[in-house]
């Protein structure tokens, strides 16, 4: 029923709006082209809004956007999936490899008698993430979503994840270790940037989204202890002036920081880069919560800071330790402790020489192993391995105690 503009050799599916200024979008913009290059063409299926074309053909890549606006998150995900099923039906003849990012895209791509390899890229599991966004999600609903995640993990041919922390969580869920490839997020080295005209003399930077688990409130409390440093400012570049952001703004004014914190929203990448490159420090005050500790996360902002040669002060959590070594590219501090965070920032601010050393180490760290080229080479190598194993789809690698009953309904 769905007719495609061309027969896709590969398919990249993500329940994310694309393109946007968010991390997920950056990831898709890097990974999807690598897939299409490898396969000689393909189809990108993502979310869109009415300002984006529903269909787009660029050389050998067709982009199809799911644009129906359904207010209910789950209903929209279900409708998104059923539209994907029809695309998969239409692409059945030509499809050789499929890459998906979530359990909403997964089921149609991991069907039993498929003729393509399926890669599941796990950045986070909705069964863990969703309660942050929707506190009233019923446990039985989360259990169902978890069952679908397990089904996708079991039936796919390979799992890709950006952090070892996430990989070990997946192992705990019963995924065969051999099936998992850790491909850290990348960042491209940022050359030195002109100082933004309206930038304060001296500032530390937070950039990114502002959900509670990001721990920006800890940073604000820490910053309140640094008010003796007269000329120091905190610049916060948020991805959107959301409810969370407004909550933090009012916290800042309660802490008496109104004229010391500069809030900016929705900066484009090229606008953000000068702010990042000229910061004294970049702070990633991630909270010590189940989401960050057990599931793991891939704080792209840390890698991007290193790539700009900016030392990072971050929470000492397993996924962060994969990127930053304490005392080398920055400092790792105990999470959720404003006093500790403030002390680490103060010490580094007092020592230009240490910052300089860290800056050099940071750039080196990225150039040696964290550029996008590294990530894409690892991804392409994985695709090539899958090409050579065409007849071993969906090997079962679940541990017996884990039930996936109902996952195939």
């Amino acid at each position, binding site marked *: 029923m769905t007719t495609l503009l061309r027969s896709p050799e590969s398919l990249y599916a993500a329940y994310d709006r694309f393109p946007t200024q968010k991390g997920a979008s950056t990831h898709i913009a890097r990974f999807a082209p690598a897939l299409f290059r490898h396969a000689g063409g393909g189809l990108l299926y993502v979310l869109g809004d009415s300002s984006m074309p529903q269909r787009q053909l660029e050389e050998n890549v067709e982009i199809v956007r799911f644009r129906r606006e359904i207010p209910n998150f789950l209903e929209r995900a279900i409708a998104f999936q059923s539209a994907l099923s029809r695309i998969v039906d239409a692409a059945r003849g030509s499809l050789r490899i499929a890459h998906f990012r979530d359990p909403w895209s997964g089921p149609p791509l991991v069907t039993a008698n498929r003729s393509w390899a399926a890669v599941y890229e796990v950045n986070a599991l909705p069964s863990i993430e969703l309660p942050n966004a929707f506190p009233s999600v019923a446990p*039985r609903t989360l259990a169902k979503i978890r069952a679908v995640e397990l089904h996708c993990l079991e039936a796919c041919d390979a799992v890709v994840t950006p952090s070892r922390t996430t990989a070990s969580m997946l192992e705990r869920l019963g995924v065969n270790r051999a099936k998992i490839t850790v491909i850290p997020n990348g960042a491209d080295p940022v050359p030195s940037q002109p100082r933004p005209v309206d930038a304060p003399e001296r500032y530390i930077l937070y950039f990114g989204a502002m959900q509670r688990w990001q721990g920006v409130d800890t940073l604000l409390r820490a910053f309140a202890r640094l008010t003796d440093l007269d000329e120091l400012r905190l610049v916060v570049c948020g991805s959107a002036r959301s409810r969370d952001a407004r909550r933090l703004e009012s916290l800042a004014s309660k802490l008496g920081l109104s004229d010391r914190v500069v809030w900016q929203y929705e900066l484009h990448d090229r606008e953000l880069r000068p702010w990042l490159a000229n910061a004294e420090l970049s702070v990633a005050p991630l909270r010590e919560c189940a989401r960050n500790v057990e599931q793991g996360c891939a704080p792209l902002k840390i890698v991007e800071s290193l790539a700009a040669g900016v030392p990072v002060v971050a929470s000492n959590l397993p996924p962060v330790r994969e990127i930053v070594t304490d005392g080398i590219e920055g400092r790792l501090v105990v999470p959720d402790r404003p006093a500790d965070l403030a002390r680490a920032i103060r010490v580094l601010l007092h020592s230009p020489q240490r910052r300089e050393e860290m800056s050099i180490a940071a750039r080196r760290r990225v150039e040696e192993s964290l550029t996008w080229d590294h990530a894409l080479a690892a991804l392409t190598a994985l695709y090539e391995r899958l090409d050579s194993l065409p007849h071993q789809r969906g090997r079962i690698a679940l541990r017996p105690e884990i039930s996936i009953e109902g996952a195939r309904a």
Partner: protein
Amino acid sequence: MKKTLAALNALTPEQKAVLQEKRLEGSYTPQAMLALLRPVSEFDRLSDKSRVGIGCWSAVFFVLAVVCLIVTANGVIPWLLGAPLILGLLGAFLFFLVTVIRLSKVDLSNNFRQIALPFVAILREDMEKGEPMQMKLDLTAPTAKTKKTGESDAYALGVYYKVVDHFYRDAWFEGSAWLADGSSVSWAIVEDITESMRTKRNARGKHKTKSKYRKICHLAVDVTLPHKEYSVGAAEPSIDAKVKVKPAEKRTTLRLKRKVKIKSNEPWDVRALIELVAEAFRRAKPAAPAGGAA
């Protein structure tokens, strides 16, 4: 006018009967109901529009006939020419007059086109195909003699030296339907109309009377929700309505009432009625699945 008369002639005997009787009572599927009434409504719409025009034309012919008569009587044109012209103009005048009277006799209350039809068309979406709904429609004029409930004593009001209020009660629409989800909806509309006849003397000393209308429309809706599908919860009220909840063993009935006040004799917005039904469904939550939440 041609179109209007053509629309009238194209009606089936059943549809013409609706126009004559202006009452409808019984069990209809919404499909049959809409099929029966859409052409009637279309005729009514055309008729409302063209009656004004036809009225104007009849007046024009009458004036022309009078002018002709005067001109001929004064000998400007000979009687031999004038007489047939006058007769012709009078004939045209009479024809148009009769048409207007004929059309106004079959005029339906606008409530029909602007409230009853859209409401049936919306309710139909929630009904199983082919399922009938019960309804009783009275489309005679809201201020028909039979609907009069009384009148006030004459009183004075500002420049009007004589005002008499006439009161009418028009219970023109009620009905009930089973919906596809097993719930039922019943509704009843009663309008209390006040026609205020106001007489004043104008600058030239002539007595002029005009009618002003105001009405209070009572909308009542019962929605019964089966427990098999729904549980009834609380909801922030979104409209100004009285809601009573009556739980029973297998179903809960929500009784909703609201008033719409209007300072004319025009129909209210059907949305007022749709919102009232919606207000009941806003309280409906899905029944917990069998076995409860795992």
